[in-house]
């Protein structure tokens, strides 16, 4: 990605971001509150554009295509390839089954058998199958927060994206659910590229391969996670990870 700038109306939220994100790796984004982490990650699947006043400049290339190029790369297409899991679990007010097949359905898969298979595979992928296999047709709102979050992950897996974006996926969860989701992330990276925003530096250290540190809309440092946490090359990164501010 090159020279990414982003404004909310008059105020700039991202400044000249340049970075390369690897495939089948977990990239963690850390930084103090308000530094632009969510904005950045939402830019990657262009969800940020749901705020009407947003303007962007620069380029993000995904597999050789500029994602801002509406003509050649419809935004729906992009989002099919780049899935997203949100901070607060947001299942649809439907049954678990319906939640999972929502994506495949809109992409034109109608065959009942295929859909069943997708549900099973996705729920297994989200480490939820055993817990819910007998209540697939119950409303997803009846699940615990951690389960709901995994339903959302499964929903995302169902359309087999390449990249999964996660914006603080565990911040609304209790420690046990958090552990489950973290575990899951580790498994998922076998098949997917994962970009995860987190407030929790321990979490970043535990699960990511590379880590990016944002501050006031700038990318301060982007490096191998171990390197970044042990020998940060930027003073500000060091201050942050040692708890000097934020």
């Amino acid at each position, binding site marked *: 990605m090159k020279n990414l700038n982003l404004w909310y109306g008059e105020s700039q939220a991202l400044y000249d971001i340049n970075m390369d994100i690897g495939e089948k790796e977990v990239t963690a984004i850390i930084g103090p509150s308000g530094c632009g982490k969510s904005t950045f990650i939402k830019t990657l699947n262009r969800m940020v554009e*749901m705020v009407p006043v947003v303007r962007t400049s620069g380029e993000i290339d995904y597999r050789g295509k500029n994602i801002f190029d509406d003509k050649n790369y419809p935004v*729906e297409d992009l*989002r099919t390839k780049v*899935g*997203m899991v*949100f901070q*607060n679990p947001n299942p649809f007010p439907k049954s678990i089954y319906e939640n999972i097949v929502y994506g495949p359905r*809109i992409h034109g898969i109608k065959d009942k058998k295929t859909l069943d298979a997708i549900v099973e595979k996705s729920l297994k992928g989200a480490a939820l199958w055993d817990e819910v296999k007998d209540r697939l047709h119950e409303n997803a709102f009846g699940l615990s927060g951690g389960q709901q979050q995994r339903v959302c992950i499964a*929903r995302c897996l169902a359309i087999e994206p390449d990249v999964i974006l996660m914006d603080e996926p565990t911040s609304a969860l209790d420690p046990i659910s958090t552990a489950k989701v973290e575990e899951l992330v580790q498994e998922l990276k076998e098949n997917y590229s994962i970009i995860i925003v987190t407030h929790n530096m321990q979490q970043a250290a535990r699960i990511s391969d590379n880590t990016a540190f944002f501050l006031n809309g700038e990318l301060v440092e982007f490096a191998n996670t171990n390197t970044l946490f042990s020998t940060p090359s930027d003073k500000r990164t060091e201050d942050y990870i040692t708890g000097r501010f934020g």
Partner: protein
Amino acid sequence: MSSTSKQMNEKSVGAIIEENRKNRGSLMFIEKLVPKLLLLASIISVLVTVGILYTLLSEAFTFFDQVNFFSFISGTYWNPWQGEFGIMGLVSGTLLITVIAMLVAIPIGVASAVFLSEYASDKWRRILKPLLEVLAGVPTVVYGFFALTFVTPVLQSIIPRLSFFNALSAGIVVGIMIVPMIASLTEDAMSAVPNTMRQGAMALGATRLETTFKVVLPASLSGIVASFALGISRAIGETMIVAIAAGATPKFTMDPTQSIQTMTGYIVQVAKGDAGFGSTIYYSIYAVGATLFVFTLVMNLIAQYISRRYREEY
């Protein structure tokens, strides 16, 4: 002089207050009285309902002394001057109008709500919404006049066999009148759906349309259905448009090109100035009014039940 008064004050505000407190009896009396008076005012709205029930029922009972209740509710032929009181002859007219009105109001109302809540930019919303609300403020007599002198001729040029007074034109205009109501209630229900839900769908690559139809609308369904129920209730009770444009021919039919008569239309026809006490026909308007009241009450209760029972929880 002024200095003395000032002095007085300085030592006295507290003292005056102390003083005044002693004769506070009247204040406390008011304090006790006021809630009772206010309660009385609120009871009046209950009395209005009681009044309506009393009025409709007592006169309707007199009517049913003269006309068999079962032939009233099951009869399809309404010709009071020949002693034929089959309410279905009027109910069918009312239903025909209601069906046409809802066929107009539901798609347009919901589509407007979808556009305003899901597609329109703030600017468009700010322009379109108040304009739609103007539509709700136009008196029905104006709509009736418009239906008869504009909509009907336009429709007749499309459907030549349309009779001059017809259910179609009146129904369409009643529908248009209800559009703002359905649009705004539906929009309320839709904007109560949290944005995270929309984002969830869009992040899966869903288009706006898919998000709207598969996520937002289902999630706000109960609010929307409640708005339909209220709309139906309005259509059933609408009077002037049908009295002016739908004709005065009670008829058990579902043919929209025909002249018909609704329950409300009949009441106006009979009551217009010459509702002298006494005759069976005079009492019949109360029997019809009671039927009308029951219909609208049921729709209102359904609307309230739905929106209470299925209030969306996110």
